């Protein structure tokens, strides 16, 4: 029974991993920008939720109406005014990657610094839906379940958009080959900017959902950028449902490994799995050959 609960805990944890990686995969997969300041929008989403519940005593879910549009707008601006000049001058994707990494690394410190100045470095946390839920005899936290359902809903919505809308088709075309996409009349710059902005909004949403059960501070962003990056690389760049699946795999392996082998090995198990996948399927689990 406890094993089932551990498994279920792993599923929820994996949902969280998938959730935080969704937006990064949009940014990296479609817009081809490796945004190292991604986690700062996660942090922003968490803080917005914190202020909404602690200062104004509203439901923190409402903070999504604030943080998501702001993150969307900021990421759109970042793409239009910081990334486009880099894209224009880059001779190839490698040169662009190097520039982008440096610029977004700088942005990371700008956002983190602003957060530190305004919100200090204190550890924050709040209680929201932190009651137990009993599922088939196992106990899970309602807030973790909420984050998991949020991850599923967002991944599903994203999947629908990508598969069944004209906009999504254009995005998929850009993912596969931006040059060819522009040849058939896709406005690559405009759609990439929107995908990048949507990725930022998803980061804020995941920050809000995860903040219901994780304590956080102004400097937490980097940690989550790295977590998201591992999941994105495991899943394969540009794979949305794959991102969720890779996150789930990571979560379940971490939980079961920690329980069955030793809890202090969870990080080793995670990275072992990561290395294994890189060796066996270097382009990611869910990328078609």
């Amino acid at each position, binding site marked *: 029974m*406890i094993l089932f*609960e*551990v498994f279920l*805990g*792993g599923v*929820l*944890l994996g949902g*969280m991993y998938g959730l935080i990686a969704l937006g990064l995969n949009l940014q990296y997969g479609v817009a081809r920008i490796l945004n190292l300041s991604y986690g700062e929008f996660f942090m922003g989403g968490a803080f917005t939720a914190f202020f909404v519940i*602690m200062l104004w005593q509203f439901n923190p879910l409402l903070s999504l109406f604030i943080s998501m549009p702001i993150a969307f707008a900021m990421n759109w601006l970042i793409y239009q005014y910081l990334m486009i000049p880099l894209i224009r001058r880059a001779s190839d994707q490698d040169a662009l990657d190097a520039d982008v990494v440096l610029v977004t690394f700088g942005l990371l410190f700008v956002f983190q610094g602003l957060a*530190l100045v305004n919100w*200090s*470095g*204190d*550890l*924050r*946390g*709040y*209680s929201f839906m*932190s*009651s*137990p839920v009993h599922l088939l005899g196992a*106990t*899970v*936290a309602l807030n973790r379940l909420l984050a998991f359902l949020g991850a599923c809903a967002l991944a599903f919505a994203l999947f629908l958009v990508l598969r069944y809308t004209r906009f999504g088709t254009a995005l998929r075309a850009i993912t596969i080959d931006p040059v060819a996409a522009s040849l058939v009349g896709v406005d690559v710059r405009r759609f990439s900017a929107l995908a990048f902005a949507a990725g930022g909004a998803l980061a804020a949403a995941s920050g809000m959902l995860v903040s219901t*059960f*994780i*304590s956080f*501070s*102004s*400097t937490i962003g980097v*940690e989550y950028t790295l977590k998201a990056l591992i999941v994105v690389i495991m899943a394969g760049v540009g794979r949305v449902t794959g991102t969720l699946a890779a996150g789930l795999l990571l979560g379940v392996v*971490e*939980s079961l490994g*920690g*329980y069955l082998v*030793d*809890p*202090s*090995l*969870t*990080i080793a198990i995670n990275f072992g799995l990561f290395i294994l996948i890189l060796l066996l399927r270097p382009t990611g689990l869910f990328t078609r050959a």
Partner: protein
Amino acid sequence: MDRRTFVKGSAAVVGAATLPTTYAQAQAAPAKLRFGYAITQSGPLGPGADSTVVSQYKLWAKRVNDAGGIMLKKFNKKVPVELVAYDDQGKPDELLKLTDRLVQQDKVDMILSPYATHMNLASAPIINKYGYPVIMTTSTTAKTYELGSKFPFAFWNISQPKESTEPMSKVLGELKKQGKIKGRCAVVHPAVEYGVEMTAAFVDAAKKDGLEVVFNKSYPFGAADLQPLIREAMATNPDAFLAFSYPPDTFMVTEQAQIVGFNPQFMYVAIGGVFPGYKGKFGNKVNGILVYGGIDPTVPGMDEYNKAHMAMFNRPSEAGAVNVYSALEVTQQAIETVGEIDRKKIRDVIATGTFKTLWGELKYVNQLNANPWAVGQWQNGEVVGIFPANKQGAKPLLFPKPAWA
């Protein structure tokens, strides 16, 4: 020459004749006292250093200067203080370079403690070499006991692993003798030096006190889910649950213990348990939880301090920060006793004196704080000191811990 200029002139002569003595005195009194520190302001330890330590340096400097400065009785003059700060980026070698700089180039009058055990330990030899007395405020390790004789200029302010865990083991042993508990203890800790040392100290003490450690497991620092671990601990049916934890997991252990309905009669969390944010998150559920460090909220001056803290940072203080503030008070009192900046004399006063501070009465034996607050407990929404039980202001242990509401 008319009379008036003569008077003026002779006054000038008399003035000039008497000037040298008074002038010399005035010059010898420094215009300000410079307190230098290199501390972690960037990187993962930055926020903790800022909220627990740097905030207190700034607050103390402001309060001292608002009161006119530190009294140097040799010059019969109050001298304002100035802070000289550097970022050591959490790197011991950087800390050493910057400490060199503080001494050689900035020629600061005093040096203040850096942040975190490994940095405090790295700092001890160099401040000792230069003969700067420093009260280390954020170092807890079993190694400390050997350091006193090695580095006479370093003082150690907070409770060490042995003193932090033995009183809990002792009280649990007594409860077992009284038949109130079976004496089963479950221990979890992150795989970092602090967690390992605290656990080792507790397990040792528990053996002596006739307790049974039925569960003892570590987890990686920064783990994302501790529920399986807590489940396992819960399954061993312990009376006492002790997490020798770091801030993020302190929060997580507390939340997930509630989720699974784990209600030990005795529950301890380590670092972070005294943070205002801890109560902010859990509200009244914190009552009865034991934590690392403590304070006596009724100490004289605490209200004024809390008000000044709130005014400066717009957030309440916590026990760890009060410890830092107390080290500054000791330093100030020692300087005022000596009456000038003579670091050897200041060191001797700290080593032998008794000091009234916001953290209670402080005295150092072999440079170790003789009786620091080791264990606190949340009672009625505030942290109070429980152990050492003989310390002034110590409150009785609230046992059993109320069940999660």
